């Protein structure tokens, strides 16, 4: 079946550095993608989304890049802070149009 996966299970960065979290997807028909942040004991928190008619979208300190040619999605976090430490999931809308298909998650650890 279709799947969404992440390249790196863990990422450790120094406070103040930029972070890049990557995600590969296999469904070329996917047209909507979302990045979620999950802190310990909490539910997934929406960060930023992007539709397939865009290749870049920026939020506050975050940027999502979409490369449809290679079916790759990335989340860039500028000036990473300790509060950014969490697990980050990419998700795509599945073929039914109702369900989110999540990747396995990348754990981001920000060290002082």
């Amino acid at each position, binding site marked *: 079946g279709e799947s969404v996966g992440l390249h790196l299970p863990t990422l450790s960065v120094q406070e103040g550095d930029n972070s890049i979290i990557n995600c590969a997807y296999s469904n070329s028909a996917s*047209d*909507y993608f*979302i990045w*979620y942040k999950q802190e310990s*004991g*909490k*539910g*997934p*928190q*929406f960060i930023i*989304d992007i539709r397939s008619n865009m290749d870049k979208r920026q939020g506050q300190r975050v940027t999502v890049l979409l490369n449809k040619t290679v079916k790759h999605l990335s989340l860039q976090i500028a000036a990473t802070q300790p509060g950014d430490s969490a697990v980050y*999931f990419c*998700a795509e*809308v*599945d073929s*039914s*149009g*109702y*369900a*989110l*298909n*999540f*990747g*396995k*998650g990348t754990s981001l650890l920000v060290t002082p």
Partner: protein
Amino acid sequence: EPEVTQTPSHQVTQMGQEVILRCVPISNHLYFYWYRQILGQKVEFLVSFYNNEISEKSEIFDDQFSVERPDGSNFTLKIRSTKLEDSAMYFCALGEGGISNQPQHFGDGTRLSIL
């Protein structure tokens, strides 16, 4: 703050018993979802609910599971004859519009432990 409150935060139940997990939206929403996350694994879709009926369900959501909005406000997930493998975090999510137009907002989940 999440737009939805889930109760209980932790439920411990004997295998074979029934459990009801509750989701209380803070504001009006049209679309309701249940997801689960087994410890250390990814979040998995269970079911979506719109206009008082199921719009989509996954293979996980078999006859053991059911959902309803009994009073037009609370959104519940019932699991009958619980099994050990039902132990997981269960997340309720809400949406204002079709999933392709709006992100889903998740609650903080109910941790279900089956003994």
